[in-house]
C-alpha cells in the first residue's frame, strides 16, 4: 500500500516538474513563470505600462516642464525656438510644429494648445475610459454568463435574448446613437446622475456594447462546468446556487476572464477613438487620443503632427496591450502554444 502511494506521488511530482519546476505551485504561479519567459510579451507589456505611467504624470509635466494646461490657449503667444521667436499659431492659422523643447515639445494645435500636454491628458482620458469600460463589461458579462449557463431554462432564454439584441445592434451605430443622445442630455436613471460631458458616458456605452462578446463564451463554459462532479459534490454538501456559482464555478472560469481583460482594454480604447471621431465619445474641450486625431484629420495636409502624434501613441498603447494579452493567453493555456509549436515544426518540413 505504501509503495503504491509513493509511486503515485512520485508520478505526480514528475508531471509537475515537466511543466514548470517545483511541485505544489498553483496554476497562476505557473502561468506567471511562463509569461516571464516570453520576452516579447513582457517588452510590449512594459511599453504599455510606460505609456500609462507617462499619462498619469500628465499634471507634473504640464506644471514643471510645459508650464501650461491641456485646455489653455496660446493662439497669440510667441515662443523662442533656437534663438528665433516663432508664432504659436501663424497669422494664416498654421500651428507650430514640434519644437523639441520643454514648451510645445510636440508642437501646438490650431487653438494654440500644447500637443504634448494634451497628449498626456488625453491619454489619461482614453485609458480611464478603457479601464472603466472593461471593468463594467467584465463584471456584467461574468454575472450574465454564469447565471445564464448555470440556471439555463427561462433565465438563459431571457438573458440570451438580451445578448442577441445587443449583439445584433450594429456596434458603432449603437455607440453613436447612445453617445450623441447622452452627450446632450446626460443620464438620469434614479440615483445614477451623469453630465453629458462626463467621461463615464463613453465608458458606460462601450462597457455595455461589448458584454455579449465576453458573456457568450463564459456561458458556454459554465454549461459544461455545471455538469461536473465537483459541482454535484457541492450541491450534495448543501451549497445553494449562489454559493456554487461563487466558489465552484467562478474560480474555474477565472482564467478565461483574465484572458479577456487585455483584449477588452484594447477594444475599448479603439472604440472610444472611433466614437470620438464621430463626435459621440469624449466631449470637447476634454482631450482624448480619439478627439485629438479627429481634430487633426482635417488639417493633415498642412499640419500632420496633429494627427500623427496622438495616432502613434494610440497605436503603440493598443499594440502593447494586444501583444501582452497574447502572451497572457499563451501562458494560461500552455498546451495551445506547445501544440502550435509542435505542429509548426511538422508543418515547416
Amino acid at each position, binding site marked *: 500500500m505504501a509503495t503504491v502511494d509513493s509511486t503515485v506521488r512520485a508520478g505526480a511530482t514528475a508531471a509537475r516538474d515537466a511543466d514548470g519546476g517545483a511541485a505544489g505551485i498553483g496554476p497562476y504561479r505557473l502561468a506567471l513563470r511562463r509569461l516571464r519567459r516570453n520576452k516579447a510579451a513582457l517588452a510590449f507589456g512594459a511599453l504599455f505600462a510606460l505609456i500609462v505611467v507617462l499619462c498619469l504624470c500628465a499634471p507634473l509635466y504640464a506644471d514643471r516642464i510645459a508650464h501650461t494646461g491641456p485646455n489653455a490657449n496660446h493662439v497669440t503667444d510667441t515662443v523662442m525656438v533656437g534663438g528665433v521667436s516663432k508664432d504659436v499659431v501663424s497669422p494664416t492659422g498654421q500651428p507650430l510644429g514640434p519644437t523639441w523643447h520643454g514648451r510645445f515639445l510636440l508642437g501646438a494645435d490650431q487653438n494654440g494648445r500644447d500637443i504634448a500636454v494634451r497628449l498626456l491628458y488625453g491619454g489619461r482620458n482614453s485609458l480611464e475610459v478603457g479601464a472603466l469600460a472593461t471593468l463594467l463589461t467584465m463584471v456584467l458579462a461574468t454575472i450574465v454568463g454564469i447565471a445564464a449557463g448555470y440556471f439555463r431554462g427561462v433565465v438563459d432564454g431571457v438573458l440570451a435574448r438580451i445578448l442577441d439584441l445587443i449583439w445584433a445592434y450594429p456596434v458603432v451605430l449603437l455607440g453613436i446613437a447612445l453617445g450623441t443622445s447622452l452627450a446632450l442630455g446626460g443620464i438620469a436613471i434614479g440615483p445614477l446622475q451623469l453630465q453629458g460631458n462626463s467621461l463615464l458616458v463613453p465608458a458606460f456605452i462601450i462597457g455595455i456594447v461589448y458584454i455579449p462578446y465576453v458573456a457568450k463564451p463564459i456561458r458556454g463554459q459554465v454549461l459544461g462546468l455545471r455538469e461536473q462532479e465537483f459541482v454535484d459534490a457541492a450541491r450534495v454538501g448543501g451549497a445553494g446556487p449562489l454559493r456554487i456559482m461563487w466558489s465552484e464555478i467562478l474560480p474555474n472560469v477565472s482564467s478565461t476572464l483574465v484572458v479577456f481583460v487585455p483584449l477588452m482594454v484594447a477594444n475599448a480604447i479603439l472604440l472610444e477613438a472611433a466614437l470620438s471621431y464621430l463626435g459621440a465619445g469624449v466631449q470637447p474641450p476634454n482631450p482624448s487620443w480619439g478627439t485629438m486625431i479627429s481634430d487633426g484629420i482635417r488639417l493633415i495636409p498642412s499640419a500632420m503632427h496633429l494627427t500623427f502624434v496622438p495616432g502613434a501613441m494610440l497605436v503603440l498603447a493598443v499594440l502593447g496591450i494586444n501583444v501582452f494579452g497574447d502572451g497572457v493567453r499563451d501562458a494560461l493555456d500552455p498546451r495551445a502554444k506547445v501544440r502550435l509549436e509542435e505542429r509548426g515544426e*511538422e508543418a515547416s518540413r
Partner: protein
Amino acid sequence: MTRFVVRRVISMVLVLFAISVLTFLIFQVIPNGDPAQRMAGRLSTPETVAAIRRTWGFDDPIWQQYLITMKKIFTGEVISYTQQVNVLDQIKQDLPATLSLAIGAGIVWFVMGVLFGVLSALRAGHFTDRALTVVALVGVSTPVFLLGAVALYFLAFKVQLFPNGGYVPLTQDPLDWLYHMILPWLVLSVLFIGIYSRVLRSNLLDTMNEDYVRTARAKGISERRVLVRHVLRNSLIPIVSLWSLDFAAVIGGGAILTESVFNLQGVGQYAAESIQRLDVPPVLVIVMLGAFAVVMLSAITDVIFALLDPRIRLTGR
C-alpha cells in the same frame, strides 16, 4: 429543419422589434431634443412649433408615435425630420456605395486573410510567419479612420496615386468606380486580414495533426493535395462563418468610419449624419436594416453549415 427555421424567424422578428423600440427610446429620452423646435429653426414663433408638433404627431403618446413611424416605414413613406426627404429613397440612393465597399472589401479580406494564414502556418516559426504576425498585430491595433487618413495623405495627397475620396457609381464608369474603391477596400480589409490570418493559422496547425490527415499522407497523396483537400478545407469552416458575420456587420453600418473618411456617401455615413442631427426616422430604418442583415446572415450561415457538415446539429438556438 423546419422547426429550426420557424424558431429562427420568430427570434429574428422579436430581436428586430426590440431593436426598433430601443432605438426609438434612445432618442426620446433626450430632454432638450424637441424635434419640432429643431424643425422650426431658431427664429420661430411658438405657433409654428405647435403647428409642426400637431402635423407630425409629436404630441401623441410615445407608443402611438412609435406605431405611426413603424407603419410609415413599412408602407415606404417615412420622411426624415430635418431634411424632409423620403428616408427609403435616400437609402436606396446610398446603398450602392455601401454594397460596393462591403462586397469588394469582403472579397479582399477573405482572399488575403486565407493567403496570409496559409503562408503563416506553412512557415510557422520562420521569418515569413513572424513578419506576418507583426503586420497582423499592427493591423488589429490601428483604428480604421486613422489608417484611412494616413493612406489618403500619402497616396492621394503626397503621391497622387489615388483619388481623394468620393464615390463614382459602377453604372456610370466602371474603371473610375474601381479607381475610387481600391483604397477604401484595402483600408477596411486590414483589420480583418489581421484577425483571419491569425485564426486560420492556428486552425491549420491544429488540423495538421488530425488522424485523417495522417491517413491521407499514408495513402501517398501528394503534400499539396493533402494540404488543399484535407487540411485547408476543414480549417476554412470557422473562417467562413466568421466572414459571414463580419460581412453582415459591415453591410449593417459597420463601415461608417471608412465611409466617412473616404466620403463615400453610403448608408453608414447617412446614419452618422442623421444621428448628429438627432433625426430619428433614418437612424431607425438603418439600424433595423443592419440588425436584419446580421440576424439573417447568421441564420443562413447556420443552415449552410448544417447542410455541409453532418456533425453540426440544428437546435432552436
